[in-house]
């Protein structure tokens, strides 16, 4: 056991020797370990939020209609990504061939979205419109890239509506 020994104490004075109570301290630490082990969360789960109300669409609440804004649309098609806007812009990012398979060109999408963010620096909203047949993982990856580029206010829409 740990102790502080200052000597003396034999000549009628009060002893100044002190014992540090290590056992209760170890008990406390063991209790902490047990509590933290019981409440530990090993899965780092998180969420990507999106709403189903497309920007510019009439709200269900009695809010005044916002000014007609250019809609920025990211389509996730089976052939690749299409970045478009209601102003008529359209950028096609085709899938690239990787080891006999075609994969979505995420790097190119990140580059183009970065350029778009510079052009539309006051905007953080974007419509993500996946097509039928696209894997869920590819849609989430596109949303992740859009969030990283600064388009954090994502809305989901049916991809068929923009074909």
């Amino acid at each position, binding site marked *: 056991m740990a102790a502080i020994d200052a000597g003396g104490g034999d000549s009628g004075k009060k002893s100044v020797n002190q014992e540090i109570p290590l056992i209760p301290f170890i008990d406390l630490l063991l209790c902490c370990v047990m509590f933290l082990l019981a409440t*530990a969360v*090993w899965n780092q*789960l998180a*969420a*990507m939020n999106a709403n189903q109300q497309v920007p510019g669409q009439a709200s269900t609440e009695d809010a005044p209609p916002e000014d007609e804004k250019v809609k920025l649309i990211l389509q996730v098609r089976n052939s690749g990504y299409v970045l478009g806007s209601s102003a008529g812009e359209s950028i096609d990012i085709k899938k690239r061939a990787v080891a006999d398979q075609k994969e979505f060109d995420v790097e190119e999408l990140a580059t183009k979205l970065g350029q778009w963010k510079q052009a539309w620096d006051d905007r953080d909203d974007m419509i993500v419109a996946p097509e039928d047949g696209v*894997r*869920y993982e590819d849609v989430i990856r596109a949303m992740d890239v859009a969030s990283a580029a600064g388009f954090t206010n994502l809305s989901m829409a049916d991809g068929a509506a923009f074909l």
Partner: protein
Amino acid sequence: MAIQRPEPVLLHNIPLRFVRDRVSGHGRKSVDHQIPLIPFIDFLIVLVIFLLMSFSASGELVAQQPTITMPKAKNTQQIEVSPIVAVDERVITLDGARVADTQTQGQSAQVDRIEPLIQGLEAEKRKWETIHPSEPFAGQVIVQADRNIDFRVVKKVMFSAASAGYGNVSFAVNQAE
């Protein structure tokens, strides 16, 4: 206060000579052993710090299901308490209760309503409004889907959720490093 050389304090107070000889090891190997408590405490402190780093005050709101491999994402937000719609390769469940077959929903190209899901979500909504009468309804639902699921199925789930008044969707993902 002067600092003096430490002495074996315990042995001064033991009047029995044979015990004193035995403990102090006069002529023999000492049987006095010290338990190394300080390294043990160091180890416990390191363990506590490691566990504190993985501690989450909100707890585990969404359990990882063995049949679902969720996609990974970096730019994420915290999950909030909401009804959970899980979509694996076989079934669609609402808070663990089966509401539809994934295969059946994936075959039809039309965006159909999943009626059992809508009814379940509406019941959840009524329950929430009863418990929180003064708070506005957030209309948030967690979609926990397998990464290889056709988005058509997820779209039907979202359409049904919107029909039940749940316009905000949180897609559950694994946090990427």
